[in-house]
C-alpha cells in the first residue's frame, strides 16, 4: 500500500492532537531521578567457569526496582579503564588460587593498602575463609577478592510528572515568583523496596550472581517555580555534591542477600551465607523542570505573540513552546 507524502504530516498532526487532549494545560513539574551504586566488591563468583569460557572476565548488569539490566555501565568492575564502557569483573573468582600474587585476576585488598574495606565488617561478615587473614593495609598476599575503583554508577532512572499549580510572575519582571515546581519545595523523595539483582551478562543467557536488598533512601528537594534540585546540589548540575564520597552516610548497605540458589541471609546473620558481592546505593541525581504552561508575555517574542492573537481561531499562542499553533483539525491546519 502506498501513501502520498501528505499522509505523514497529517498523521503526525493527528497524533499530536490526540496526545495534546490528554495534557491540556495542566501545570506539571517533570522529574528525572537516578539511583546509583558505589562501593562495589565481589567475594565469590562462579559464573562462566565451564570449559567453553576461557576468559573469566565479563560485564555485569543490574535489574532493580528502578531499572532493567543493560549491557552498559550499571555495575562497573575493574578490568580496564573506568572511562570505557563495560568495565569487567572476574566472573569465576572461585577457580583462582588466593592470594593472586600478581593481582591480575583478583585485586582486593590492594597491595598499596589505599582502598578502604567494605563498611560492613569485612572480612568477618561473609562465609569465606580465604579473606579472613588479609592484612589490615597493604603488603603482599593481599589480592583475594575484587573491588571496583570506578566510582558511582547509575543503575536505573525514574521519570515523573507531578501536577502542580500554574507558575506566576507577580511583579512582571519575567522572573517567576510562585507556583510550578516551587509547590514541591521541601518535599522529600523516597525510594522504597530497593533491590539490585546483579547478573553476569552473556549471549547464551545471563547468570544471576546475587540479589541485594536495601532500606529506603531519601532526598530533600529545593525548588524554584521553574526547577527542583536536591538540597545538597550546590552547583546546580543535578548531581548530589557528595556523590563521589564513598563514605557518605547517604550510601546505604544491604540488609538482606539472596544468592543464585535462592538462599537468603540477613546482613546480621552469622556468616551471611548468601552474600557473594557487596555494594551501597543512594539517590544520585535529581532534576525537576516546570514544563508549562507559562503566563502571557513569558516568551521573548512579544510581537509574535501579539500577531498570533490577532489571527484569531484556530491560531493560539503556545507560551510553553513560544510558537503560534494552529489548533484546528488537520484539514484546516497546515502541517507544522
Amino acid at each position, binding site marked *: 500500500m502506498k501513501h502520498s507524502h501528505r499522509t*505523514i504530516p497529517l498523521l503526525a498532526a493527528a497524533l499530536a492532537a490526540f*496526545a495534546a487532549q490528554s495534557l491540556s494545560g495542566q501545570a506539571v513539574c*517533570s522529574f528525572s531521578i537516578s539511583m546509583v551504586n558505589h562501593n562495589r566488591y565481589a567475594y565469590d563468583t562462579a559464573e562462566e567457569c565451564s570449559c567453553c569460557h576461557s576468559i573469566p572476565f565479563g560485564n555485569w548488569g543490574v535489574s532493580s526496582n*528502578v531499572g532493567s539490566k543493560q549491557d552498559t555501565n550499571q555495575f562497573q568492575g575493574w578490568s580496564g579503564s573506568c572511562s570505557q564502557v563495560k568495565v569487567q569483573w572476574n566472573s569465576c573468582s572461585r577457580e583462582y588460587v588466593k592470594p593472586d600474587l600478581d593481582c591480575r585476576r583478583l585485586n582486593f585488598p590492594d597491595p598499596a593498602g589505599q582502598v578502604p574495606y567494605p563498611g560492613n565488617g569485612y572480612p568477618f561478615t561473609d562465609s569465606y575463609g580465604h579473606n579472613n587473614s588479609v592484612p589490615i593495609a597493604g603488603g603482599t598476599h593481599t589480592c583475594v577478592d575484587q573491588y571496583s575503583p570506578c566510582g558511582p554508577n547509575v543503575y536505573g532512572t525514574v*521519570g515523573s510528572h507531578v501536577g502542580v499549580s500554574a507558575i506566576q510572575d507577580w511583579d512582571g519582571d519575567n522572573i517567576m515568583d510562585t507556583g510550578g515546581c516551587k509547590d514541591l519545595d521541601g*518535599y522529600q523523595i523516597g525510594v522504597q523496596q530497593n*533491590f539490585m539483582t546483579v547478573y553476569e551478562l552473556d549471549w547464551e543467557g545471563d547468570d544471576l550472581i546475587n540479589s541485594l536488598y536495601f532500606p529506603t533512601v531519601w532526598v530533600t528537594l529545593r525548588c524554584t517555580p521553574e526547577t527542583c534540585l536536591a538540597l545538597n546540589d550546590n552547583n546546580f548540575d543535578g548531581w548530589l555534591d557528595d556523590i563521589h564520597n564513598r563514605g557518605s552516610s547517604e550510601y546505604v548497605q544491604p540488609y538482606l542477600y539472596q544468592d543464585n540458589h535462592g538462599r537468603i541471609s540477613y546482613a546480621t546473620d552469622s556468616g551471611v551465607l548468601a552474600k557473594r558481592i557487596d555494594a551501597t546505593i543512594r539517590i544520585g541525581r535529581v532534576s525537576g523542570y516546570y514544563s508549562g504552561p507559562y503566563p502571557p508575555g513569558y516568551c*521573548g517574542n512579544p510581537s509574535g505573540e501579539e500577531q498570533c492573537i490577532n489571527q484569531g481561531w484556530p491560531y493560539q499562542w503556545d507560551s510553553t513552546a513560544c510558537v503560534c499553533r494552529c489548533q484546528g483539525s488537520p484539514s484546516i491546519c497546515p502541517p507544522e
Partner: protein
Amino acid sequence: MPSKIRTKSSLAALLFVATVAAMPMDMTAQPSSLPGGKITGRLLDRDTRKPLAGEVGASFVANGRIIFKHAQATAGGEFVLDGVEAEKVYLTTKLDGYAVEHESVALRSGETKTLELALVKPTPLRGRVRNTAGRPLAGATVRVIYPSDAPERGEIRTTYQWETGETATDARGGFVIQVHPEKAFVVEASHPDFLRAVSAPGQVKALGQETAVDLTLESGVTLAGIVKDGEGNAIQGAEVRLIETGARRATPGFVSHALLEQQLRLASSGADGAFRFDQVSHTTKMVVIIHPRYKPFRQAVNVNRDKAQSPFNAVLEPQN
C-alpha cells in the same frame, strides 16, 4: 523538523487503537483493616490470559513526600502493594518481553482495591541518528517517550527506564527499541556533543512494523561569561539561568525531560566568577543571574548559529 518518520498506515487504524488503549480495566473495592490503603492485583498476558510473574512500580504524592514503591508478583501473577498513604496511586508494570502498562488507582484510607493488569508483547522500532552532514552518530542515547494523561495537582505519573527502552546507537548510528505497539510515542536522542532532538509522534501499530525513525542532531554553541560586582570583583556562587525564550522545540502532549533541561540551563559561577554553557541552541535566550547579596540580573541574548558567541559579562548591583 530535525526528524523524520517513514510510515505505512492509516489514521483510522490509529484512532481505533488509541480508543482500545484508553479502555479502563475492571477494579473492585473492599474495606481493608490495614493502615493506609492496599492494592492487590494480578498480571496476565492479554492474549493467552496466563499469569505473569512480573513486577509493579507504584508512585504517589502524600504528606510532603513523593514515594516510589515496588512489588514482585508471584508465579501466579499476584502482587500486593501495602501501606499506600495516598488517594491517587500510579502503577507501572515491569516484565522482560512485555510492553509496559499503567493504571491510576484511587484509594481511600483503609481500603483495599483489586485489579488486573493485562500485558501485550512489544514491537521492535528501528531507527538511525545522524549529524547534519548525514554521517551516522555512534553512542547517542535514544529513548522512547509516551504521552500520559495530565496529573491533577498533587498527582503523579511515572516512567521507569525499562519503559523508555533507553539504548545507545551502534557504530552505524542505528538503534532498536522495543515499543508498545498500541501507544503513540516520540523518540528522543541525545549526545554530549550535540543538541538534543525529539522525533515527530508515531505509533507502530498504525504505521506498520517497518516504521523507522531517523533523527538528525545539530551542533550548538558555547556561551561563557563572568559575573562581577561594580568594582570588578568576581562573584562566586551566583546561580546562572539560561532560559530559552525564542521558539522552543516541544511536541504537544509529550514531555521530554532532555528538552526541558536544554531549554532551562543552570550553572553556578566559580571562584573567578566564570560560568559556561556548552551545546546551547540557536534561539533567543534570557540570562538570569541570582545571588542573595545582589539584585537579580536579567538580559536577553540572541544566540547566532553562524557566529562565535562573545563572552558574556554581567555586573551585579548590590541589594539595597
